[in-house]
């Protein structure tokens, strides 16, 4: 039966995440925006709350935490595995994850990304690791290293190499834009076993952060999400045990790269949820500030009978709701074992562009107060831009959607 409300069983979780956003993240939001690269120690103090969120049964927690994997454990958005197709509708961990991330990112996107053990590398481990590897690495904080200086959206063209040498692989190359790269305990590195074999030779490797072959080159200075560290690494004859190649070590003619790309299918709804959360934050504050300025939008009256500011707020609320529901749909489909690659990209595309548009418009509507550091609106506008870029840019999402809709291959629709 069609119903698009937050299910009752997730309401306590959403409230907890909202509490984390309001009581923990917001008060330190500006502090770590200004103190880029400083570790937010408050997150350690709050680890009990965060682990409580993660272990609250119905949830995968505030981030893409995928430490579990025990029998009967629900499949997380980042977990890669899908719930089997059952007759009854399931509201599982995919839905609860996006709901809680919407809340924590209403608090702060950078701090959400900095929550220990919630890294996107954890999602990769869950997506492609075998059971033994999941056991070994499930409780560790894992960052994700895909992008290289010359390889962005075309992640199939990476140049970092992995060469088998006895019981080890030797990794060589450069990795950039590694979120939580400095703080994480593990870095999941994408590398190719044989560049001449193309995408299917790409495998992911777990590299311990203290591996002497993994050198931190620098931390980036960024437009936004400054609370989250973004690292660049060089891999110089970096040796890892052969057991640390995630999943299947063989180069298959098909499926290998697709499997790796499936990580994206699973993490895109999470990033869409981040964008939805940030959009909510901007709208809430702008609405509050404009109300003090005498603007009260009336949802029942036609837009054309209201002031520009009121009408604009209502329009932005409408696009917010569209992005919100597209995100919930993508997660719900994963919970119910439905292939959701296109819907995940739809959610990411809509949420990404909506959050940038809304955050910038809220700055505009609030004028000097919006633009100045006295409020967080200008910060959210800066933070928003990454959400339309990482885990696949707006343009990549549109490509995914268009290829699926039009049934075109990547060689037909480039």
């Amino acid at each position, binding site marked *: 039966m*069609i119903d698009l*409300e937050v299910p009752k069983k997730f309401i306590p979780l959403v409230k907890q995440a909202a509490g984390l956003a309001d009581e923990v993240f917001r008060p330190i939001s500006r502090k770590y925006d200004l103190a880029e690269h400083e570790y937010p120690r408050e997150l350690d103090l709050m680890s009990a709350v965060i682990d409580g969120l993660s272990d609250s049964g119905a949830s995968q927690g505030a981030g893409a935490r995928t430490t579990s994997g025990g029998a009967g454990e629900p499949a997380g958005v980042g977990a890669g595995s899908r719930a089997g197709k059952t007759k009854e509708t399931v509201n599982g961990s995919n839905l609860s994850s996006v709901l809680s991330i919407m809340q924590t990112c209403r608090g702060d996107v950078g701090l959400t990304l900095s929550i220990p053990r919630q890294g996107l590398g954890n999602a990769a481990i869950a997506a492609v690791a075998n059971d033994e590897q999941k056991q070994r690495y499930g409780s560790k904080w894992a960052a994700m290293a895909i992008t290289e200086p010359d390889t962005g959206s075309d992640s199939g063209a990476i140049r970092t190499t992995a060469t088998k040498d006895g019981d080890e692989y030797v990794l060589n190359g450069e990795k950039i834009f590694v979120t939580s790269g400095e703080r994480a305990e593990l870095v999941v590195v994408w590398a190719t076993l044989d560049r001449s074999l193309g995408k299917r030779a790409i495998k992911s490797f777990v590299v311990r952060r203290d591996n002497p072959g993994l050198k931190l080159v620098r931390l980036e200075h960024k437009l936004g999400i400054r609370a989250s560290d973004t690292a660049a690494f060089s891999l110089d004859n970096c040796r890892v045990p052969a057991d640390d190649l995630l999943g299947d070590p063989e180069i298959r003619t098909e499926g290998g790269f697709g499997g790796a790309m499936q990580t994206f299918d699973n993490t895109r709804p999470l990033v869409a949820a981040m964008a939805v959360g940030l959009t909510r934050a901007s709208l809430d504050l702008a609405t509050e500030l404009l109300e003090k300025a005498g603007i009260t939008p009336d949802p*029942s009256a036609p837009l054309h009978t209201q002031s520009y500011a009121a009408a604009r707020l209502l329009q932005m609320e409408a696009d917010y709701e569209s992005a919100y529901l597209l995100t919930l749909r993508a997660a719900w489909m994963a919970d119910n074992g439905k292939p959701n690659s296109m819907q995940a990209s739809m959610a990411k595309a809509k949420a990404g562009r909506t959050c940038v548009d809304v955050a910038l418009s809220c700055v505009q509507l609030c004028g000097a107060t919006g633009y100045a550091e006295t409020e967080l609106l200008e910060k959210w506008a800066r933070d928003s831009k990454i959400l339309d870029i990482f885990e696949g840019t707006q*343009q990549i999402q549109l490509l995914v959607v268009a290829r699926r809709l*039009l049934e075109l291959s990547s060689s037909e629709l480039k």
Partner: protein
Amino acid sequence: MSHHTPKPTLADRGQNFGMRLITRAGGLEAMKNPALRAKVEKVLYRGARQGFRAQVAAGRAFTAKTGSGSPTRSKPAKPRVQFDLNPSDDQEMIREAARELADEVLRPAAPQADTDRTVPDEVREQAAQMGMALLGVPTELGGVAEEASAVTSALVLEELARGDMGLAVAVMSPAAVANCLVNYGDSDQQATYLSAFTDEASPATGALALMEPQPLFDPAKPQTTGSLDGGSLVLDGTKSLVPGASASDLFIVSALVDGQPRLVIVPPNTDGVTVSDNPAMGIRAAHTGTLHLEGVRVPSRNLLGTTADHSDAVARARLAWAAAAVGTAQAVLDHVKGYTKERKAFGEPIANRQAVAFTVANIAIELDGLRLVVWRAASRLDRGLDASEQIAHARALTEKHCAQIGSDGVQLLGGHGFVKEFDNERWFRDLRGAGLMEGVLLV
């Protein structure tokens, strides 16, 4: 009529909603489902029992009747607690029936109906046979609803408007009047007017006329006025874009009465009521007209519902238009998906170009977003929750994105979109209307 049937078990009750509707669908594909057919056979007697009734001319006479004293309302659908995008089995069956009506009947008839500004008789008959206009009318009052469901209405409107918006509006306009009587009418009003709309052989036509011609129109502040004069209400004003105005059996108009917007029942043969033609850019099959009210005197008992009921009607109408826009936008998407792959330029399908493919992708994204907002609003209404914000969102998205989708649907075809070779120019005209129309349709 339901008191003739054995009291349904709880399990039956769940199925009943769709059954009586499907019954009328006769030879539809949906009837090939054996489980469905078996259940339908149980209620087939109804159709067989119906005697032939002489065709009644438009502008029929309504004799004031006294009802039982307590009006009959549709029962609200039962609330659920899961996030779910699957329609119930009943909703799925009704949607399937509407889909077939759209594909087999509405779409093929649409171009000519648009040109002629008429609804072909066979379209009206088929739609009436399927009981599409009675979805919100309880069985006790001769309709088909066990449970009233805004979601079901939205699904049906979406499908019908995917077939053709103009014909969907024409076919569903009487449903809005019937639903107003069910939702807001007292028992006397229901007894007096409703049976004409549930008449199988010749169901009444009608229109919920809220629109007015002035720019920046706000339905909460109609310029049409109603002054109480003894036991009468005297109406003055103009209503625009009223579907089928010239052949309507009954109007429900909005008017400012004592400073409050109210709904008023106005039979077309009342003195002072005149109708003139009011063709528009789109929804032309619905043959829109202008309704002029000059010193129209109706009994004050013709006031329908309260001021709150008026706002409820405005909101439900906006949601209905958004649902219809979803359907027509889906028609655009379905078409351009095929066309851009077939049409070649520079030696390859134009869909191979990002500028084209991304336009198609964006149509799909905005369309899906709007559909979900419509569903959420409708399911909130069914749960008895406040849906005013979601309805406002659906309205705003319809205004902003559906006009764009209509435009893109022409643009992707270039000159071929601009000429009447394809349906796209009609969708362009129809989609522009969905974001500005008030009244007429109702979920």
